């Protein structure tokens, strides 16, 4: 009764299914591209902001610290960081994403240098943590350290955390690794006030260091004025 099997139909259905797959792939690509473009846009925006702040700072020197706006950048860098992290996880570790990540690392370093300069010259209460992690291998301590850092950042808005992938192929990051003598066996690694901390550090550990750093800043200006006068 089943007569002959309609092979043509099996083939047509196969072709329709393939075309649905291609459509899905196309849609997915389209949205991925949109997201990549969004990341690029944010990055360009940040690059302009940093450049502008830098220029503004050079122009005004220490004349008017009031006009130097740094707090703007921080939240944008945060957002960029989160989107890049998500992108790496969900859009695949493509060339484009890793390129964006390099760019992001560079922006972070620039922001770090600029903010450090601003905070020293303008006596802004601030603290900086350089955070080195790895994605090359399963690093459960890095995961925990990230939680610590993000909750610290929420508690202390003056704290700026810059995170770098240890395995990133970027000479600027490699230079920092050399400066602070960070080895891949000691990840996660943190640099707080030029002091290297390796392995996992709890919220309490870091809080102590942070408060010390804030105190130093409060004490320092007086000392500076004394030597100056």
């Amino acid at each position, binding site marked *: *009764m*089943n007569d002959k099997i309609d092979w043509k139909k099996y083939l047509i259905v196969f072709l329709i299914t393939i075309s649905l797959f291609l459509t899905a792939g196309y849609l997915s690509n389209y949205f991925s591209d949109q997201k990549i473009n969004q990341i690029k846009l944010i990055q360009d925006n940040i690059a302009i902001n940093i450049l502008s702040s830098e220029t503004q700072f050079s122009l005004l020197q220490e004349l008017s610290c009031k006009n130097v706006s740094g707090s703007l950048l921080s939240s944008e860098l945060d957002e960029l960081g989160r989107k890049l992290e998500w992108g790496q996880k969900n859009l695949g570790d493509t060339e484009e994403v890793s390129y964006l990540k390099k760019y992001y690392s560079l922006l972070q370093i620039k922001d770090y240098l600029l903010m450090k300069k601003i905070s020293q010259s303008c006596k802004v209460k601030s603290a900086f943590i350089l955070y080195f992690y790895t994605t090359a291998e399963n690093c459960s301590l890095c995961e925990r350290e990230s939680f610590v850092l993000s909750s610290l950042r929420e508690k202390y808005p003056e704290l700026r955390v810059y995170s770098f992938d240890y395995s990133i192929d970027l000479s600027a990051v490699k230079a920092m690794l050399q400066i602070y003598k960070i080895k891949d066996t000691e990840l996660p690694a943190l640099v707080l006030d030029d002091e290297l901390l390796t392995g996992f550090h709890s919220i309490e550990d870091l809080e102590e260091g942070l408060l010390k750093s804030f105190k130093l800043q409060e004490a320092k200006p007086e000392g500076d004025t004394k030597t100056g006068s």
Partner: protein
Amino acid sequence: MSNMVLNPNIIFYVLIFFSVYVQVFFLVTFFENRRKIIVRNNKIKITKYPAVTIVVPCWNEEATVYKTVCSLLNLNYPKDKLKIFLIDDGSTDGTWNAINKFSHYPNIKLFKKENGGKYTALNLGLLHTETDFFGGLDADSFVDPESLVRIMSYFEKDPSAMAVAPSVVVYNPKNLIQNAQKAEYHMGVYMKKMLSFLGAINVTPGPLTIFRKKVFNDLGPYRHGHNTEDMEIAYRMQKNNYKIEHCNDAFVFTSTPGTIKKLYRQRLRWIYGFINNTIDYRDVLFRKKYGNFALFTLPTGIVSILAVSYLFGQIVYDLGDFLYSKIIQVRTVGWHFTAESINPDFFFLDTHSALFLVVFIYSFVIFAIIFGRKMAEGKWSFSPNIFYFLIIFRILAPFWFLKAIYNTILKRKPSWR
């Protein structure tokens, strides 16, 4: 194409591919045959009214059997051409008393036997059947008055039809679970019709499938069939190239499980039956001489079992991963709520190609339910039952699928209810 998303999970995409393939296959079949789908709303006449025997096996069905028999007596079919056998399969409740009320009807015969399972009751009926047509009716189901004559019209039209299955729909749904099943049964009507066009039906449902008696003379009586005798006989018929038709406008209303536990047991039995009957008839699989049944129906069932199990495994894994990460977070920094989640950003919406494929599949399923309903109720409409079905079955189905696989591995047989 530089950032073409390549998920390393090949199994996942293979399963999605087959799932889409199956749905497209149904849809193409639909567009090929849509003109042949006839829904008759009025009373019809056929030239000859062949005698039919309908067997009602009862096991502890005192609550519904009276109504079931009444629905049979209300059939728009000559009374002298309709023989009804009521078979008490060793009930321990008042079933025997309930069916005794019909003892004075000339066309009703009562039988009482020791409990041996539904297939033994059907076989007892077969043994006493003298008509050319034979059918069963579960004692928890009620037939539409026009159902039998519509079924018989298929036999009249097509002498090669050996069995004709009705459209089974949900009787009087009261709660969420039954309403979800209502949508599911509508999808079943659609799929069964499509399978009939393909000559590939794999179940001749217990409620009111009518057979030519010749089927049993040639192929032998009902078998246990892993508690799904209505599936086993369909497999046997397909193996012997006996044609099974579906009369989409013959309606049978069936009582459906009203609790998750009962639904679980019923489905466990069905899926277990599918797996084990397929194992028993594995020599049919992928053999082109057995037609679309071997190349489409059975592989579809196998793919759905694999897909449901795999997706469930993945969800459990993802959930475990998420919880593990949360636990680590809580243990590291304590409870704290981030403001990020409050402000939704389109950026973080998943746009993997799998997402779109799943959307395609769901669209096909929703179409199937809506069209099935059109065939069953004669109206185009959209009901929230579709969502109850999609959500409830999405959550529950993996449990009976996995348990059925587990039971098969252990060769443990699930009980009837």
